[in-house]
């Protein structure tokens, strides 16, 4: 056992638990016409795992993914066809921003900021959200540190 491997070693058991958690969020998101199939939920978890690895982070559960789903399912700019892909992209933007802001902004606050910008100045454009709005936020937060 290496110390960080113990995090990775939980494998299939954790994945099963997380799948259930993601699918449970369909109950709320269905009110907005959005839901995941089991396959989409599984792909989403895999995508989240890749994203967190690529961004050099560790998370013991999927709290961030669940919060992003719970908040963004209300967005008027997300439809059924691109729901899973959009959430996947938002999760990657989220973890990237956590690094850019050096963990100075809490999860809830960051997700709220992302939601407001996505629905506001970005009008549903993930590209504008990542490369313009949040890039500015990252620069501002570095200056303040």
């Amino acid at each position, binding site marked *: *056992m*290496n*110390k*960080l491997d*113990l*995090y990775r*070693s*939980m494998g299939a058991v954790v994945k099963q638990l997380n799948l259930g958690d993601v699918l449970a969020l369909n109950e709320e998101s269905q009110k907005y016409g959005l839901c995941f199939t089991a396959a989409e939920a599984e792909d989403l978890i895999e995508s989240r795992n890749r994203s*967190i690895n690529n961004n*050099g*982070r*560790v*998370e*013991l*559960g999927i*709290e*961030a993914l669940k919060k992003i789903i719970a908040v963004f399912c209300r967005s008027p700019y997300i439809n059924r066809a691109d729901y899973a892909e959009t959430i996947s992209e938002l999760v990657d933007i989220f*973890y990237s921003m*956590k*690094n850019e802001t050096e*963990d100075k902004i*809490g*999860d*809830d*606050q960051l997700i709220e900021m992302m939601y407001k910008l996505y629905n506001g100045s970005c009008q549903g454009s993930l590209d504008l959200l990542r490369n313009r709005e949040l890039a500015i936020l990252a620069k501002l937060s570095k200056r303040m540190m």
Partner: protein
Amino acid sequence: MTSSNIEKYSALHQENLDPNNYTVSLLNEALRLGLIDQETMHGVQAQAMTILGELTRKYTKGESSSLRVETTQRLLMSIFYAIDAGINNFDDVRDALAALTSDDLTEIYKQGLDSLESNLEACRQLYQEIDKNKLAVHNEAYQATINDLPKFFRNYDILFNAQDTMANIDYPLLFDDMSVQGILYIKQYLEKLNLENQICQSFASEDIDQLLYNYSRVYRINVREALINILEIVLSNAIFSILSGNSGNQLHIAPEHFELLHQKVSNLDRNQLSSVLAEAIETLISDLHIEEPVTKEYIRNFKGVLLPRFMNALEYDCLHNIIIFDTKVNQHPAILFDEGNSLDDKRFRLIVEDIMDCARAEDKAAIIRSEIHSLGDFIDILEAECLFGDEFHALYNSLGDMELSILARIVFIEDIRTKHMNFSLANPQEITGEMEWQVEFCNYIQNLNPQRIKLIENYIKSKLQINEVWDFLG
């Protein structure tokens, strides 16, 4: 327990485990030997992750569910450092394994945190004692290490960074275990520093000062800035002092004692030298009235350091490199002011030419030491314009206190005549004459340490050893 289990457990040895990664190495070794299965291992891992989750929540104040890999790694190391402290109390490695696999890991973790807190408090108290009784030596690493330790106590983070030894520890101990980390390293460092201080305090501080001064001259280093261990220098000379026939708390070794010692040990083999050293160490312990077993052991362990150096020095005939003489008695007069041994003019001129041909001050001084034997010839050489500036200092460096006092009586003759016993070499009022050698002599004397100046002054004020000086001066 079945016989196969007994065999497996017998293969589980403390020495195969990493003391700085105890828990993880123990579990891995137990898994390898088949003493635990994967399911048990997963159980321990799951508990560790629960602790990590809780610690992450505390670290982020509940505001973040994820951290950078490096930060998580650091938290995990801190967790296992505390768990290691929690199971370190088990003498038997089997008991430690049983606790890890059957007890609540969170409880072991909490016990470990308590243990670390106790160690931290013990360190604070040790530090108070060290700070109160520290040696009055002029060594920057020693003083700065002790003075900076409070910063460590303020910054040490038991919860999130228990494994980190974030202290400026520059002063080298005689025996230091740098494989240990965190508060446990600091504790062993302070315990040993305290012990070393206590041993050094068995000797007079002025004797230690003199020894360090002599050491600096032998090795041509600045003892104030060097990373030296004071106990090592003190113990070395104390042991050789005993071998020279002195008592254990004596650090001074006279040249004639060195010769006796050299004769005593030069034909001994390794085993005999080892016995001789061991015996001297026991004499030292007895003479210093050391009772604590830990202190005795610390001094005894020094034999392992000293013996190879001793043997090496004997093999290459450089015993004078490891035995530090006291300059008070060590300096053989470089020039024996023997007025019956003056040079004729021709020989004097040849010596002056030889001196002028030398580029290095040390070479000039060496010629003067070997060829000039009378005070008259010596003063003539000083005035022969074959030495300049720092070259005078190189020559004066080779003189003993008595010889320097004779020159001082020439240079400050008027001041001495005026003030008699009130004359102060540290604050002479006037130089008699303005020759370069006299001006440089005055500069040289003023740069000596106060103790040496005092010794030379004592010679000046005592009965003059060579009455011809007054006749010579007319």
